[in-house]
């Protein structure tokens, strides 16, 4: 009898817990990605940066539309082609009450280089830096190794730690909270690895006081479970709402869904360097005389055969915007004059015939099945659309880990990739520039597209410290590469948040979820 009573009371307590709204000043957010380390300079993965940006800040900041705005630096300017001067914000305090100075900034910019054994560190963001010199307490001068206009973008990813606490500290000191001392809006309270991070408001913060006293960031990678936790009232907001749930959540009057076009562009790399790329054959299964993808008409035919609006509406259930650009609308270097290629199967067939492939050919399309929104369905749809115009397409989808292994072994000739960037020239450098290990170009240019004109424009853009000039050059390079179909752009993903109806969040192009940007309505 007694146990029965206690069971009932347990259930009652549970019921009350879930029915009671959270105290007004608590915010509980469900994150979709596993946080692996709290060390802000160990692994450059979005979940790590998400939690990092609650505790730490960077010199330059990014607004919800990916525009560069002041962060811990109030302003900055290029003194000459290789020298930048950053004026730091005065009166900023670390969580322990100590002052933020140029010493901390200089130390933080150097620290990523000292991290050893990381499979994906932050060194890439500081490789252009020759020296970072403290001029005075609030002035930092950065010399770059070569003229480099993207420095303010790059160092946005470098979070500023307290030199006092982070000197000689390793990832374990950050995971324990000991070295987790930043200037950001939230202070470390408790970390349960693989489960949650609890934060408390930093009342010393220089920015607009966040609405929430306490924030819990819970890691729930399973999509349906994250949605369920929101529906049950255990969470106030979730990120990356699965496409299947969007409709249902939008109809729920207790909830609201906020969306923005993400910076993530989904594209297809096409082999343009091998005479006989793997997976491409004639209809008889024999190798073709030459690589059809080297012919712009064939690439154009691929692009025309893909029905982007239908993919966006049906396959992606509205979570995509047809793409014609390397970067999303509104992002630095985006060319609004480029329009997504219209669906034109007849035109595609004509172009194929002109190129000498009236009978079509066979290709294998490779891609991940666990990385991007509905990625495998997108692959299947593209394959069917291409098959319809005569390019018989077979899909090989695999988990990202296995897929990338195959790509690196150069076993793919037609491969899907997603890319997020807040500047077209930076994206071009990785995706489209002629691969060159010495220059560090084209590390992700799987098709090895090579166009000296694009390379030249991109080089000039990156070397330009005048932002307007740089954007014009970057846009020019983008337009040129896209008109030449360096790769086949598919769509820009749409990123979604769902939250209680009495909350407000400005959806961010860069997909970040920040507790301090949630507002009570």
């Amino acid at each position, binding site marked *: 009898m007694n146990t029965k009573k206690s069971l009932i009371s347990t259930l009652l307590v549970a019921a009350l817990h879930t029915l009671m709204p959270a105290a007004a000043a608590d915010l509980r957010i469900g994150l979709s990605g596993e946080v692996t380390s709290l060390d802000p300079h160990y692994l450059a993965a979005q979940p790590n940066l998400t939690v990092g940006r609650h505790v730490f800040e960077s010199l330059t900041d990014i607004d919800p539309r990916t525009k560069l705005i002041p962060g811990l630096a109030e302003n900055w300017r290029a003194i000459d082609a290789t020298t930048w001067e950053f004026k730091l914000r005065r009166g900023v305090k670390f969580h322990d009450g100590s002052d933020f100075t140029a010493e901390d900034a200089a130390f933080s910019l150097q620290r990523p280089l000292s991290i050893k054994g990381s499979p994906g560190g932050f060194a890439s963001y500081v490789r252009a830096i020759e020296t970072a010199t403290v001029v005075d307490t609030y002035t930092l001068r950065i010399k770059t190794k070569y003229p480099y206009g993207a420095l303010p973008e790059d160092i946005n990813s470098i979070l500023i730690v307290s030199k006092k606490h982070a000197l000689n500290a390793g990832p374990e000191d950050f995971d324990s909270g000991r070295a987790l001392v930043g200037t950001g809006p939230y202070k470390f309270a408790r970390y349960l690895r693989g489960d949650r991070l609890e934060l408390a408001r930093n009342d010393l913060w220089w920015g607009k006081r966040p609405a929430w006293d306490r924030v819990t960031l819970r890691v*729930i990678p399973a999509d349906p*479970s994250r949605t369920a936790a929101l529906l049950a009232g255990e969470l106030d907001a979730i990120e990356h709402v699965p496409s299947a749930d969007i409709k249902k959540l939008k109809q729920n009057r207790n909830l609201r869904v906020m969306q923005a076009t993400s910076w993530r562009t989904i594209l297809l790399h096409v082999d343009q360097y091998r005479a006989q790329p793997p997976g491409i054959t004639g209809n008889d299964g024999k190798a073709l005389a030459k690589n059809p993808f080297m012919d712009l008409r064939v690439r154009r035919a691929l692009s025309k055969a893909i029905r982007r609006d239908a993919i966006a509406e049906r396959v992606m259930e509205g979570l995509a915007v047809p793409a014609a650009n390397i970067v999303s609308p509104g992002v630095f270097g985006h060319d609004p004059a480029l329009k997504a290629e219209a669906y034109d199967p007849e035109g595609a067939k004509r172009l194929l015939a002109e190129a000498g492939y009236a009978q079509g050919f066979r290709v294998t399309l490779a891609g991940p099945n666990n990385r991007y929104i509905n990625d495998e369905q997108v692959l299947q749809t593209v394959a069917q659309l291409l098959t319809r115009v005569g390019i018989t397409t077979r899909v090989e989808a695999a988990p990202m880990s296995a897929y990338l292994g195959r790509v690196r072994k150069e076993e793919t000739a037609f491969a899907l990739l997603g890319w997020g960037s807040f500047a077209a020239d930076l994206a071009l450098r990785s995706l489209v520039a002629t691969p060159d290990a010495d220059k560090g170009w084209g590390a992700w240019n799987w098709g090895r597209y090579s166009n000296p004109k694009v390379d030249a424009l991109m080089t000039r853009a990156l070397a330009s410290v005048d932002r307007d000039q740089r954007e014009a050059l970057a846009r020019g390079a983008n337009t040129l590469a896209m008109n030449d179909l360096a790769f086949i752009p598919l769509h820009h993903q749409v990123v979604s948040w769902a939250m209680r109806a009495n909350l407000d969040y400005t959806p961010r192009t860069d997909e970040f979820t920040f507790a301090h940007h949630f507002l009570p309505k």
Partner: protein
Amino acid sequence: MLSYALRRLLQGVLTLWVMSLLVFAGVYAIGNPVDILINPQADQAEIAQAVAQLGLDRPLWQQYWAFLSSAFSGDFGMSFVTRAPAVALILERLPATLELALTAMLIAVVLGIPLGLLAGLKPDSWISRAIMAGSILGFSLPSFWVGLMLIMVFSVQLGWLPTTGRGATVDVFGIPLSFLTADGMQHLILPALNLALFKLSLLIRLTRAGTREAMLQDYVRFARAKGVSESAVVRVHVLRNILIPVVTVAGLELGSLIAFAVVTETIFAWPGMGKLLIDSINVLDRPVIVAYLLIVVFLFIVINLLVDLLYAALDPRVRLEATR
């Protein structure tokens, strides 16, 4: 007895070695973690540097040899993604998983054996039929679906229990346990139930089959003829005899509950070892994968040994030495 245990342990070490070889080569064959984890802005030199720093550019046998030599001194390497010792990461998650698996096993045993016994003693009653029908559902419904349904019904619709996560914990000898707090218990019920469902069905069917067979045995008839009460017949003669296969299966299944609670832990965002394994496989965090599977193999070896010892206790005819 002692020589038996020693021999078993030696076999176990051999198994561990073969397992480490297989897993090591398997993960190597899938791909390179740097490809997945590398900063997208990294250039070729930085990619090569990251690969070299992790020793992934060396031939497989060299990498394996380096692993083996440090493994002998108890060092199974650092997780690539967290820069924490792999074994420490796994042991950190062990209490959560053990708690979940033992609760699930408890549910399965406490409900499964009596229900199976009932179904075996009165095979034609409607209640037995209901039990058997239920056990078929428990067998055949996929675990992730049942988990989601449990969440939708008990958490979202009825609002009785929390959807996901582990509740508040208290430290007992430095081990964080959640089943000792009310909040922790509430969080434990649904995942434990979900995990228990399959084992529960298994035990019901096993116990029922054993019971039906035992009821036809001569010793049961003699006992009845002797005038032993029905409850004593069941308790002393039936139950004791059917417990041997039940203990074997329960033991082995406990191992798989601990090692492969992956689906349940993922659906319920339970911060246990299974979730760690899946996360590690997704990013090819080889040190954690290898250490995890070695720990699991070790667990199975120990459990098997314990089951064998338990046999001897339950059945006086079993002599461990006799298997030589």
